[in-house]
């Protein structure tokens, strides 16, 4: 259905409530629709369930006299990206919840309530989300303009008690705590596994122990500085996030990266994806205790890291993206050498895959473990390899191509079982596709500069996106009149996916928990920002 038909039908259903503002993004189809606050839940629900859009993010902006709530929905290239904006005067801080129509918006609403103080009427679980009740006073809203980001805020005078919300009512039920410091090399997060003793009945993660407040820190800084924040939101997918940010900034400043830069950006993004997936495979082998498999995958991961460092100067591809292109160029000889080494690494990775396929003890531990059904994956708005393991094969590189991806041929793998083994197979398949894309890039890399020159920063707002290794990432950037960042919002794939982690972890025994975590391969840093 084209965008025009969409708007016409929307106007029919909710007469008077819908008003088209403008077309967004020069590169793809999309539009911004202003909607009245009462009609937003139904309208967004209609977009989601009947028109088949996926939920990208919810962005809250505090202007001089009004609140802007922006719900971003995306579909394929025909559907485009739809921004549904609703506005209310600053004094009105209650909004209706969308939770009854779109479950995937759950965490976004909770985050906004904690950070901005807006109340979503009808949401059953507001509070104690980003700002933990045992450290922060209830009335602290750090993202409001009046709050000074540089100084430590006055929080609680005395440590308050936090009691978890436990739901299992059964004789002898208890909640086993895992974390925040729990394993050898693991990110800090708390998991409470409610159980009666054998299998986990309910598992809800308590994240945001690593909340760094990136969105607030970025405000008032030049966009070059905000680019550093974007990169370091998650170091293992730094290039992808940097790329999404640069695309948003370039859209605002009306700058287009030259063709060579676009090609190299694709090359580096796929290199990062390849390395990330190898690391994820290593983690899965490690979680299941398959030592030789872990070592084999770890060797490949280290080779990729060294390769990245020798090729670009940094093991995690920091410092390459810049507004308008890349910060350095690469010689053709080096690119060919890179490709050769990558082919060799891919060949060895496929050998590892073949051996894993025949290791029964390994398969026993990940097959039929941590199952997420396709229906649940859609309901919870999962993205990335996890969603593709449950049959939802949406990939931003195909749906909304950026940086020249529409010029390359590649497949998006998809499996239907939704268990750990399906997700593992997706990782291997995507790694292979990454090398395929890199071959095409190197063979067709145009000449020219890699940077469009110094950028003239102008005010404006835009959405940038990229398919990070863990899934779809959206960066919303607004540059103010003083050429500094006025609002920066990151919607990361881990944030969207942690929401659905409990679907996989429940009804399995304790011992499967680390394995399910490893097959999900999510990042707490990316989610906590």
């Amino acid at each position, binding site marked *: 259905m084209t965008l025009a038909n969409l708007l016409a039908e929307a106007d029919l259903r909710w007469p008077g409530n819908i008003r088209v503002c403008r077309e967004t993004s020069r590169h793809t189809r999309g539009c911004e629709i202003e909607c009245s606050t009462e009609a937003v839940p139904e309208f967004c629900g209609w977009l989601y369930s009947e028109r088949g859009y996926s939920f990208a993010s919810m962005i809250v902006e505090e202007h001089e006299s009004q609140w802007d709530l922006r719900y971003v929905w995306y579909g394929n290239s025909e559907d485009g990206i739809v921004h549904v904006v609703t506005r209310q005067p600053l004094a009105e801080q209650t909004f209706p919840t969308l939770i009854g129509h779109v479950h995937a918006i759950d965490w976004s609403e909770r985050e906004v309530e904690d950070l901005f103080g807006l109340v979503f009427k009808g949401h059953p679980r507001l509070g104690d989300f980003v700002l933990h009740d045992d450290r922060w006073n209830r009335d602290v809203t750090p993202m409001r303009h009046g709050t000074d980001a540089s100084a430590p805020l006055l929080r609680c005078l005395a440590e308050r008690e936090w009691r978890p919300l*436990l739901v299992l009512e059964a004789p002898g039920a208890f909640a086993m*705590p895992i974390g925040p410091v729990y394993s050898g090399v693991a990110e800090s997060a708390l998991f409470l596994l409610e159980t009666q003793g054998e299998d986990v009945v309910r598992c809800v993660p308590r994240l945001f122990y690593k909340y760094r407040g990136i969105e607030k820190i970025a405000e008032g800084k030049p966009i070059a500085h905000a680019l550093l924040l974007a990169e370091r939101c998650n170091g293992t997918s730094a290039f992808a996030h940097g790329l999404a940010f640069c695309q948003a900034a370039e859209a605002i400043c009306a700058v287009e990266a030259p063709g060579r830069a676009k090609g190299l950006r694709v090359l580096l993004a796929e290199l990062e994806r390849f390395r990330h997936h190898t690391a994820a495979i290593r983690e899965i082998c490690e979680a299941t205790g398959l030592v030789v498999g872990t070592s084999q995958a770890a060797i490949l991961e280290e080779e990729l890291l060294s390769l990245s460092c020798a090729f670009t100067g940094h093991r995690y591809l920091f410092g390459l993206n810049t507004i308008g292109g890349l910060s350095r160029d690469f010689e053709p000889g080096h690119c060919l050498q890179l490709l050769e080494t990558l082919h060799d690494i891919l060949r060895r990775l496929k050998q590892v895959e073949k051996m894993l396929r025949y290791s029964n003890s390994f398969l026993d531990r990940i097959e039929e473990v941590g199952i997420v059904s396709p229906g649940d994956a859609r309901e919870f708005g999962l993205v990335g390899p996890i969603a593709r393991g449950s049959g939802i094969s949406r990939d931003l590189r195909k749906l909304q191509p950026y940086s020249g991806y529409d010029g390359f041929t590649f497949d998006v793998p998809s499996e239907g079982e939704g268990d750990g083994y399906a997700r593992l197979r997706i990782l291997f398949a995507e790694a292979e596709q990454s090398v395929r894309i890199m071959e095409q890039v190197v063979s067709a890399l145009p000449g020219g500069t890699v940077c469009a020159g110094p950028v003239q920063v102008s005010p404006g707002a835009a959405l940038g996106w990229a398919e990070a290794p863990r899934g779809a990432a959206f960066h919303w950037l607004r540059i103010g009149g003083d050429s500094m960042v006025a609002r920066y919002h990151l919607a990361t794939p881990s944030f969207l996916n942690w929401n659905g982690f409990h679907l996989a972890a429940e009804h399995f025994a304790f011992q499967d928990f680390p394995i399910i975590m490893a097959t999900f391969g999510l990042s707490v840093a990316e989610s906590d920002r």
Partner: protein
Amino acid sequence: MTLDGAMFGLFFVLCCAGMLLAIVLPQQRNAFGLACTASLAAIAISCLSIRVLLSGHGLQIPLWTIPELGTLTLSLDRLSALFVLSAGIVFLAASAFSAGYMERYLGHYSLRSFSILFYALFLSVVLVLIAADVLSFLIVWEAMAIFSYFLVNYEHEREENIRAGWLMLALGEVGSISATLALLLLAHRAHSLSFSEIRAASALVQPGMRWAIFLLSFMGFGVKAGLIPFSVWLSRAHPAAPANVSAVLSGVILNLGVYGIVRVNIDFLPVTMPGPGLTALIVGSATALMGILYATVENDLKTMLAHSSIENMGIITAALGAGFVFVASGHRVLASIAFVAALYHMLNHSVYKALLFLGAGTVDMRVGMRNMDLLGGLIRALPWTGLFFLVGALAISALPPFNGFVSEWLILQSLLRSVELGSTAIGAVFAFCAAALALTAGLAITCFVRAFAMTFLGMPRSQQVDAASEARRSMTIPMGALAAACLALGITPTYVIPVLDRALAPYAVSGATQALVPAFFRAASSGLPPNFVSEFHDLGAQVGKGLLPISGLVVLHRGGERNPVVFAMSTPYTLVVLIFLLSISFAAVRFYLARGRKLVIKEPWDGGLQRLLPEMTYTATGFSSPVSVIFHAVLHPTAIEESRETIYEHFRTAIRRGSHKEPHILERLLFQPSVWSAIAIGNLCARMHNGRLNVYVTYVLIALLAVLLLT
């Protein structure tokens, strides 16, 4: 009158005086009076039984003569004295405990009636053990059943207690009837009601009758001892009673069932076929396994201990069964070892079960609840109770140097000697049952680790626990005495075994002393090969030669001809080594490894949480859930019902899992079907009462015709 007679008279007088005192004293002083007088009575009867055990001279007291029924006599021989001694120890502890414990009933129930019933029960128990003819036995047996029923029903305002007591009485009566039949059959054969004449006439009984008498007595007294399939009353009745009564029920009354089985099948009618023995062995092993299985998943402290009593009775019965098989096949020494093991276990069980029940009663009284899921961390509030409960738990889990280890070791060793029987079938049954008993021992450790840890260690799981405080000394001292007795019985097996052996001597099964505790201080006459003796000397078995009597400190168990090894066990040595190792380790750590370093006590590491909450710690249910999952077929045949409440379809507000208890497997398989079929048959027969006069007249006519035809 001899000194023994005087002591018995003193006991009797003390009990009667106690009853009078109970009537006279006001309610508040009644518990104290009970404690004093009953303790004195228990001391008197214990001293009497010790005298009889050591000297061998029994006590005979003829009472009234009833025409055509014979003389009612009381006779205290060594076997009875053993049981009376265990009863005396338990009653002593329970009475002393009552002084502090009965305060919780002040104002709610009548302490007067409790005291009177307590003395009555004590009297009837002792009389059952010394009754020497069928009539007096049956009279005091019924009296004992009724008095124990009243005591179980003491907290009669609670519905489940009334039902529990009624079940105990009803099943007990079934058992009494069966036992009565057995005794009457024996009396019929002997043409007399006196035990001594029955004993003399045992040779005349035919095999078919022997089977009948065995089965009737086994079933009858088995009900009292809590053997399956009639053990369903035990897990309800023992928790329903006050803690001191529970201690008596588990420590004394259950032994009466064992006493009955032993009297009939060792004393009156020694077994001549392997069948009865195998039956007893199989029933005992199954009882043990069933009991400990239900104990491991039970959350209520006292109910768990009741199930554990079923387990221990099963072990005793299995040992008796093994002994019967050995007697039937002529291996007297092996039979003696098995019986000695069974009686040793009975004695041990009385002591540690009483200790555990008194501990559970203390927890119940000081905290107000018994559910292990809600307790925790009590070792800080109740340190002495915790320590003594720990000793009881170690003893019941059969860990050296406590008494449970000795009797379990002896039982398993005697079961392993089945290879000498020669028959493969019997050997297979023995092997199977030995495996079942080994599984039982493993589950017992799980059960009691859970019981101790969930109750006393960890964090308090409810507010009532925080407010608890230690009990008075009148309650902790009896527990301490029982704990000391556990240790004492554990480190002196070489002195207890000869006493038990002599008790069995009149029944032509003896030789355990010679087999297990040979006098190898006098090497020449002990029949041991000289190189073996020298090896033992090298191992240090001669330690204490000048100080200790002949038996020394080591229990030996020699394998048969096919397996000529010697298994030695010495709990005193274990104790000494344990103390030595602990002190050396302590000294090494304190004075060498940790020298110059400060001891700092910090919080337990909880992963960096702000505060570890009680709802985040393991519960008793969680601890035993692997067991309930593995034995799912036995414990939970129906699916667990689970209900979920959600908002907006994905926010769960409550997940509720059914908390009803599944009925015991025996009830599911045996009792419920029998009850239903009985009701169905009854309904079928009730169709006879259809209210129509013509039909009733027809019935009368048919009955008339039948009578005319028959005569």
